[in-house]
């Protein structure tokens, strides 16, 4: 074998190895790449608000799956209008909690049916329990009750001392 032929073989070997390395490398790069696709799945969307009607905007929100009531399925913040949405993957009672920094906690339990997940039902998720904060007339009654209790406690303490 002449010197020229050996050089050509060596060059061919180097090019092959480099090509292989580039192929493997590019494969690795694709494996770490990101992408997205649009889903046609049904999502549950809820709006959380204060008793005064103001939305619970940008507050901590957690979604708990029926499968695991302790580890959250989804965590994040409610949007500008106090809305939280998620895509349930199994049927059952899903718990959604929104809590602000003042300790106000709104909790909803949504019953998701199999039809809802499959997308065949228009309204298949229904609210089983609403906000933990009383609303409207009930709120007024509770507020008045609270004030009444405070004055009654004062009257009792005054009588005892």
């Amino acid at each position, binding site marked *: 074998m002449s010197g020229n032929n050996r050089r050509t073989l060596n060059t061919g070997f180097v090019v092959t190895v480099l090509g292989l390395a580039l192929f493997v490398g590019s494969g690795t790069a694709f494996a770490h790449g990101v992408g997205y696709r649009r889903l046609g799945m049904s999502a549950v969307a809820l709006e959380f608000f*204060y008793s005064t009607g103001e939305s619970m905007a940008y507050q901590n929100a957690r979604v708990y799956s029926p499968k695991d009531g302790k580890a959250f399925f989804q965590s994040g913040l409610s949007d500008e209008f106090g809305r939280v949405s998620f895509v349930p993957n199994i049927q059952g009672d899903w718990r959604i909690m929104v809590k602000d920094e003042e300790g106000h906690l709104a909790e909803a339990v949504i019953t998701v049916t199999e039809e809802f997940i499959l997308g065949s039902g228009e309204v298949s998720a229904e609210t089983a329990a609403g906000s933990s904060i009383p609303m409207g007339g009930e709120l007024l009654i509770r507020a008045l009750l609270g004030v009444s209790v*405070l004055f009654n*406690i004062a009257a009792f303490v005054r009588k005892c001392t």
Partner: protein
Amino acid sequence: MHISEGFLSVPVLSAGWLLAAGEVAYGLKKTEPEGIVRVAMISSAFFLASLINIRVGPGATHLSLIAPMGLLLGWGAPPAVFAALFLQAVLFQFGGLAVLGANTVSMGGAALCVYILFGKIVRDNNRGIQTIAAFAAGAFGVMMGVGMTGLWLVLSDRSLFPAAWLLVASHLPLAVIEGIFTAFLVIFLKRTFPDVLEPVRLK
């Protein structure tokens, strides 16, 4: 500013209850029977204030009324805070019953500190100093209350330190609002009902 159920450890909850019991019992002992009605009235305002939300930046908050409670009730503040927080927990699900002790110490203790540090300055000086002192009292009350809340969280779990720090920082706008509110309240009361600024008479 309320700590919700589930955040505090059992030793911290116990310490909270112990301190709150002492604070409330001593407060009741020091308060004259004639002052009890005023305690109930201010306690009612504190109880109802939690229902009125103010939008601050992206979130919402409500007036804590810690400084007005301290300035108007003195030692009567801790019992007033305890009763109001109990009713907020039972009727509105704000905070909780297990954390009632810790919340009482945070807010009642802050109100008491406002009374001790600013009470005399707000009562006995000219209008300019009174206004500045009232603003400082309002801001201090909020920051001390939220600082103690953060302390309870960190004592329960060191990993909650960033959350506690964020809680304190997020209350800065409320501290300013509450300072302005307290200053206006003091000016108004000085003009109309100056006697009200005398705290509940002590035994």
